């Protein structure tokens, strides 16, 4: 009986291995290079003869994003009646985890928004296809350079720049006025971080009341886990082009000598002091602290103003530019539409991405939302961005905005460095934390060499 069971076990195991081997052969996806040979968008069949096509479009939820895309899709479908676009809106928090699983499945959404810092990573892994041929050089020249850099891998663009986001400091006008502190009104006059700490500490102190403490500074989440918010503080302590400023080797495979330079270590100390020494920012999240008057300032992204106006209509707020240590730097990034390598309708999907990235596509979206465009021409034309407070964001984008460090290992980099900044803000031993993160990152990024 035992020997029979043993034979049965061996048979099942052998069968499983054989089956898996078959799957390997069958499921190997077409490499990115092959996908590149797909018929150019221009050669697609004329609209009147075209077969009906249904595209699935997946994106993370965000303020006004659903109605905005509904509007853009309606405009596109009017011009292309044979195309039906189904929206799949995913909760923001779940999106990062869901996306790779989607791409791993057999039927991912044809078009999906991918965070700009992860586009090269997905391109490297063959999950999305290059969009060669759908953008004119004039388009590329009009897109913000930081987004083009984040969308380009091995000479091809894999995502269409659509909208852009950067950060600013939202401040409570009444608290600043009561403390007699005058904040900077232009990017050129931006405070350095020490100036910010000194002035905002005064404001927070003056705003203390019997109802409770007032924090000097909060981020959208506290302490921020995303490098979009925290890493510019570290990078800003280096000169442009220096290792500290780059924060990652040019080939994207090494952080030793970049994240642990003396300037970076000094900046980590400053970052920790914001939370521990100065107690300017809370070490745990305080939801809606700025809106509720529990914080004098809040570093958030450019579209946050409309959220504040909707949820806290009585709050008197304004915006000042992001502070810096030595070099003024802010991160500019956003989600960008991409086409899945496993899409059965790549031509139609590329055409839709082309439309979204066009001026017409963005304007159809912009009519319903207040996101900032990824095109310099629109940034300079749209009235809203020529006057304060939103002109601060435009000026930052055109003068001091850079892409976050990325490359094929961008998602891993963002994850580990984000955790490092979180640990430091919460009072971790800086040298030990940096050493652990650099060691792990160097080991992880080596696979992309």
């Amino acid at each position, binding site marked *: 009986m035992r020997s029979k069971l043993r034979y049965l076990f061996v048979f*099942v195991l052998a069968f*499983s*291995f054989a089956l*898996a*081997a078959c*799957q*390997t052969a069958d*499921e*190997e*996806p077409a490499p990115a290079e092959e996908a590149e040979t797909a018929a150019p968008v221009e050669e697609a069949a004329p609209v009147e003869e075209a077969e009906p096509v249904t595209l699935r479009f997946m994106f993370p939820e965000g303020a006004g994003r659903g109605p905005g895309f509904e509007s853009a899709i309606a405009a596109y479908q009017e011009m292309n009646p044979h195309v039906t676009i189904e929206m799949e809106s995913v909760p923001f928090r779940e999106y990062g*985890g869901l996306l*790779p*699983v989607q*791409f*791993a499945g057999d039927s991912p959404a044809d078009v999906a928004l991918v965070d700009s810092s992860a586009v090269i990573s*997905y391109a490297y*892994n*063959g*999950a999305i296809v290059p969009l060669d041929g759908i953008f004119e050089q004039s388009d590329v020249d009009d897109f913000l350079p930081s987004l083009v850099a984040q969308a380009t891998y091995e000479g091809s663009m894999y995502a269409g720049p659509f909208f852009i986001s950067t950060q600013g400091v939202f401040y409570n006008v009444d608290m600043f006025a009561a403390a007699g502190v005058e904040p900077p009104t232009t990017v050129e006059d931006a405070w350095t971080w020490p100036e910010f700490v000194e002035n905002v500490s005064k404001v927070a102190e003056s705003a203390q009341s019997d109802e409770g403490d007032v924090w000097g500074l909060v981020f959208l989440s506290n302490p921020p*886990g995303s490098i979009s918010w925290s890493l510019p503080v570290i990078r800003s302590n280096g000169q442009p082009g220096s290792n500290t400023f780059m924060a990652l080797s040019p080939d994207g495979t090494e952080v030793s000598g970049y994240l642990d330079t003396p300037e970076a270590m000094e900046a980590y100390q400053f970052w920790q002091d914001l939370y521990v020494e100065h107690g300017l920012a*809370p*070490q*745990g*999240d*305080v939801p809606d602290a700025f809106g509720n008057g529990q914080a004098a300032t809040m570093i958030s992204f450019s579209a946050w103003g409309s959220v504040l106006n909707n949820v806290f209509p009585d709050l008197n707020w304004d915006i000042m530019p992001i502070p810096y240590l030595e070099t003024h730097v802010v991160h500019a990034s956003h989600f960008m539409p991409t086409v899945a*390598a496993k899409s059965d309708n790549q031509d139609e999907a590329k055409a839709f991405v082309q439309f979204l990235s066009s001026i017409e596509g963005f304007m159809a979206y912009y009519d319903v939302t207040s996101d900032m465009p990824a095109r310099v021409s629109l940034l300079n034309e749209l009235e809203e961005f020529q006057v304060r407070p939103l002109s601060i964001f435009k000026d930052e984008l055109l003068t001091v905005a850079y892409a976050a460090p990325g490359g094929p290992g961008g*998602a*891993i980099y963002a*994850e580990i460095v984000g*955790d490092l900044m*979180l*640990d430091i803000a*919460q*009072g*971790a*031993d800086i040298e*030990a*934390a940096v050493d*652990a993160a650099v060691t*792990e990152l160097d080991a*992880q990024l080596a696979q992309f060499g």
Partner: protein
Amino acid sequence: MDVRRPSAHAIEHYRSALLLSLPALVGLAIFWYWPTIQAVILGFQDYNLMSGSQAWTGLENYRTAATDPLLGLTFLNTVIYFLMEVPLQMALALALALLVRRGPAWLRTVILVPTVTSMVVVSVIWGLMYHPNSGLINSLLGGVGVPPQPFLTSSQQAMPSIALLMIWKNVGFSMLFFLAGLVSIPRNYYEAAATDGANSRQLFRYITLPLLRGTVVFLLITNTVTAFKVFTPIFLITEGGPINATRVVVLYIFENAFRFNKMGYAAAISVLLALFLLVISVYSLRASRAR
């Protein structure tokens, strides 16, 4: 040799039994056995989740695991969590079972409430209670003159804080089994021992504990397996920090699979963890039977 053919009635009986259990068997095969076999197979592959490409790499993932310092660290963290959570939880559960055995029914219900509460909800609420600046626990500590504690933001306090949360969550479940075990002990054993002059400590030491051995072994095995699989509170509250202080094995498996895009390596670690837990379980059962 006397070979008896089963009767038509017996055949019908077995056929009915098979038919009735078929849905459950199919469910197990699809959602349990097949994924398990797939995980074992993946452990021998370099599987790129995003592109779907698979390549056989033999024992490479297991060789990597043998020399991976982070895996060693996460395993050590898991053992530390197990040592903090399981013994204290079981001791507390037994004490509560003894306490509520003759107490009012509502008291049992109160102790059981955390067990039936969603792990996600519990994690979020305890995360807020542990808030270093404005959490409930620091407010209470402040009331008795204890300075604010960092809890989840301290490398030293994060893991004990998670263990405390899980003890609160799981103690009701263990208490329920201890209660069942206590009820099943015949009362005449206690009466006979009391007649012989045994005091309450001796009754507990020589009657209650030995007769609860089966319950203790069962709970030890299930709680050990549960402890080594801890994930949700850590994923939701600390994400493994600060400086890897709460980075446990299952979180590391998740990171490798879905963040570092190393599905094959993640599968190999899963297999190693499953084997480890199997060995622990078998050893516990054998040790219990040997006694």
